[in-house]
């Protein structure tokens, strides 16, 4: 469908309408990316007044050192665990809501929806400080609960468990995202195939695996892709709860980039980290576009 005629005049107007955002993106996206690439080959440390070409030295610090690989691996560990857990929980909660819709009056499932979504209504920064507070040794409910059970208390966010506790916060905070998308997907499924499966004598479990899940596949794919890329670049919870610590035990690529830039003020090295951080999401986006193109062809 196109505007009738599509005269030259209309094309010019369309060009002008596009030029504005295009100019903005060149200034605030393309130019910064070019500068990022330029800086990643340099040693730029304002504190020492250095600004020298160093070739691949910055990338060597990332890809030739165990420390750098540690950041990379932690990025994927964080993403893998958070995405799969919030997906599993989101799907379970969505199925529960669908079941509640059938078994109870509408108000019950509406209330359930509201309850499940609540963590998402909290600003992530606020959720970060709330969970940090929960783990503090003398004031948090986690340790109060442990004390009540006669177990030892501990400032958990400076322990080896810190990274996983941040993941727990991430899972708690973003399960509603998965839930909302999957629930919408479930509710938009056609009724007939399910009815047919029931008539054919399929049990609840069987019809879930053989009918519901396959029909839900496109929705699941979209939800997982978006969530994976968003989780991979997670910053708020990690920075607020542990700042990448203790030591570097919760330092992902995102945190490493930020720390190197704004704590250590090594801008060249930080640019190399920034560039390395982009590789994975860009690969995913290109794969996605490629698949889309092939399907269209």
């Amino acid at each position, binding site marked *: *469908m196109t505007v009738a005629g599509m005269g030259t005049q209309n094309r010019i*107007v369309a060009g002008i309408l596009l030029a504005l955002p295009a100019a*903005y993106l060149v200034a605030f*996206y393309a130019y910064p990316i070019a500068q990022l690439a330029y800086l990643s080959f340099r040693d730029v440390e304002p504190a020492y007044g250095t600004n020298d070409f160093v070739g691949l030295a910055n990338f060597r610090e990332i890809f030739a050192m165990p420390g750098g690989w540690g950041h990379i691996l932690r990025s994927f560990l964080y993403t893998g665990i958070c995405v799969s857990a919030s997906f599993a929980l989101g799907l379970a909660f969505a199925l529960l809501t669908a079941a509640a819709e059938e078994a109870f009056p509408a108000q019950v499932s509406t209330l359930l929806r509201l309850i499940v*979504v*609540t963590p998402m209504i909290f600003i992530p920064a606020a959720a970060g*400080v709330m969970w940090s507070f929960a783990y503090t040794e003398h004031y948090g409910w986690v340790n109060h609960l442990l004390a*009540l059970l006669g177990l030892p208390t501990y400032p958990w966010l400076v322990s080896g468990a810190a990274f996983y506790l941040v993941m727990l916060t991430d899972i708690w905070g973003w399960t509603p995202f998965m839930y909302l998308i999957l629930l919408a997907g479930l509710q938009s499924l056609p009724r007939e195939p399910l009815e047919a499966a029931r008539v054919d004598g399929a049990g609840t479990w069987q019809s879930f695996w053989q009918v519901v899940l396959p029909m839900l596949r496109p929705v699941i794919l979209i939800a997982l892709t978006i969530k994976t890329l968003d989780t991979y670049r997670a910053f708020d919870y990690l*920075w607020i709860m542990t700042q990448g610590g203790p030591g570097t035990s919760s330092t992902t690529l995102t945190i490493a980039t*930020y720390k190197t830039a704004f704590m250590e003020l090594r801008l060249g090295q930080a640019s190399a980290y920034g560039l390395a951080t982009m590789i994975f999401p860009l690969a995913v986006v290109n794969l996605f576009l490629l698949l889309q193109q092939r399907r269209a062809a």
Partner: protein
Amino acid sequence: MARSLGWRLLLLALMGLVSLWSLFPFLWYFLVSLALPGSIPRSLSLPSTLSLRTYAAVLLGGGYLEAGTNLSILPNIVNSLKVAGLAVGLSLGLSVGAAYVFSRFRASGLRLGFNALLVVRMTPGVSLAVPIFLMMTRYRLVNTHIGLALVHTLLALPLAVWLMKGFFDTIPVELEEAAAIDGATLLLALRKVILPLAAPGLAVTACFVFLGSYIEYMFALILSRGAINTLPLAIAGYKSEHHVFYNEMAAASFLSMIPLMLFFYLLGRYMVSGLSFGALK
């Protein structure tokens, strides 16, 4: 299909577990926000006094104040509103025309532009942090509302274009054709016919951009030197190396929920479309 009592009880039990997972973490924080400023129970129990004093202190300042420390979040609310307002204006202004073109025109170049938006959206913000910080420093935009709003616009632009394209797609093209027959130019038809019809869609988009800016933390952290501390910075800032104000932090956290609650209440049905960038309707 008849559902047995046992099935319903099982569902209720599971719903109880879900509620525990979702809501229990708030409970302690909420109690702390209701305790008197400076008092936190040292065991799992109700605070000795429940009051709204902390909320009053957080909103109005005053009350329990340490010398030289202003605990009010009013200036931060103002900062958040300014930055988010500017971001909404910039994002919509920049993207409404592009969204219209993406909806009405077909050309291979447009496909490319659309894909470019996907790349922008999926680029980790932290990757852009160094060059954007340098740029903002050079143009003296660090610690200014407009500087932060310009960055929030970058984060919002792809979503804004996608959402608005979706809304334009629902408006029949015959309207412009009729306008064209009556002699209206494309711009005139856009202004007088299409935009009024798309107004609800623009409002929904504006809300998404607003909230995106409202909750953004990292660039606010990088670009604020105190003069533009937004709400997320203020909430996280109640804790520093020198002091911790947990009660105020909790109260401010719950107050900051209000716009998001309103949003869910009024626009919940657009949520899925926004979260999935228009991929799901």
